[in-house]
């Protein structure tokens, strides 16, 4: 399978990439690792007229510890997040989940910013961001702004990025070893049929759900129950509230909602709830 024709420009700087996006508008798509976009283009589900390759902007590849959060450059590849000593120490749930995406070859190419901007409800990282209460730093022609992860995922594959904006950094509050991540797949490398992540921090317990609706979701009813003193078993019973999973050959709606409860319970227990 070969993508439809397009023009390719390798941006030499972030400013150049933003200028190209401004000039070409909806016709242009950013290319980072390409492991979400290229499969869509090969299937002709996406046919951008121009690709602006930002994959080599190495200044956007880093994991840094700041006073209150861990900052990950948008072009940091999953493998580099998974093996980052800073991430392993101060955002271990993020490092672990980055190491569970796809397979080693995919993790050598795919980037955190690309995966999150893609807005796929079946991908793993958005749920981690939601559970941790993360923030995205985006840059456009008018400068930088911050978007809370909970405001970022608008609808199916649609995120709160303007066409000329680029995600430049992902920030997550520092966290420790109180987390749990559960993903049900048929083959190791597959997307989650259902997934759940739970994190316990000083701000309380956050729970994110994977593939349980058109957008990545927080299990708010579970979070509220835990905050009110419920144990993992009782809180997890609320995991399907507000979810709208799709039915496909991997499972029915009822199956996914059942699995969500099981995985949320396990994730909560691993997080120490």
């Amino acid at each position, binding site marked *: 399978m*070969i993508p439809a024709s*397009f023009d390719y420009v390798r941006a030499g700087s972030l400013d150049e990439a933003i200028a190209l996006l401004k000039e070409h508008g909806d016709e242009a798509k950013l290319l980072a690792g390409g492991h979400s976009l290229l499969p869509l283009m090969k299937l002709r589900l996406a046919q951008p007229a121009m690709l602006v390759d930002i994959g080599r902007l190495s200044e956007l590849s880093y994991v840094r510890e700041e006073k209150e959060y861990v900052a990950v450059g948008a072009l940091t590849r999953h*493998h580099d997040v998974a093996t980052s000593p800073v991430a392993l120490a101060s955002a271990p749930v993020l490092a672990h989940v980055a190491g569970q995406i796809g397979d*080693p*070859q*995919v993790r050598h190419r795919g980037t955190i910013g690309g995966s999150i901007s893609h807005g796929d409800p079946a991908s793993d990282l958005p749920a981690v961001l939601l559970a941790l209460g993360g923030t995205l730093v985006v840059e456009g022609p008018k400068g930088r702004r911050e978007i809370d992860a909970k405001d970022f995922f608008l609808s199916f594959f649609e995120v709160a990025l303007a066409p000329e904006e680029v995600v430049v950094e992902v920030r997550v509050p520092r966290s420790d070893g109180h987390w749990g991540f559960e993903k049900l797949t048929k083959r190791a490398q597959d997307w989650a049929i259902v997934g759940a992540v739970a994190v316990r921090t000083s701000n309380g317990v956050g729970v994110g759900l994977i593939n349980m609706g058109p957008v990545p979701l927080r299990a708010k009813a579970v979070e509220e129950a835990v905050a009110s003193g419920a144990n993992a078993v009782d809180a997890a019973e609320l995991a399907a509230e507000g979810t709208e999973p799709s039915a496909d050959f991997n499972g029915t709606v009822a199956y996914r909602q059942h699995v969500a409860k099981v995985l949320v319970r396990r994730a909560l227990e691993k997080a120490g709830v």
Partner: protein
Amino acid sequence: MKVEMTVNGTAESHDVEPRTLLVHYLRDTLGLTGTNIGCDTTSCGACTVLVNGQSVKSCTVLAVQASGDDVTTIEGMALADGRMHPVQQAFQDCHGLQCGYCTPGMVMAITSLLKENPEPSEEDVRVGLEGNLCRCTGYHNIVEAALVASRSLEMHQ
């Protein structure tokens, strides 16, 4: 569009369409047909090559993205004196293949794995090969080959 990259130690330069996939550039332009196309959907790992020493699936990389990179395919694995690379040798010694279609991708994926983890456990190897499928289901000897190669590579270092 012009692409320039080093493939198996040789500097290459060609004009390609931007939509040319790296695997097609390697196979059709350079004639390096040792890299197989299996699923063509980033799943099976048959097309695995090394880009700057790391395993990638060349069906999901554009040739233009790899311009400037150092690419290694199965044809570039043999040692300068003609002997097989220790990972290739381990596949022969352990009979780590049945039909052989997945083998080039397996060899490249294991080479990358052993670079990141020179002394893997059996579980490390099995997890590390999650991105490579063997439709003959010959995993037992493939995993054995990886473990034998890890000991052989240690001896070479």
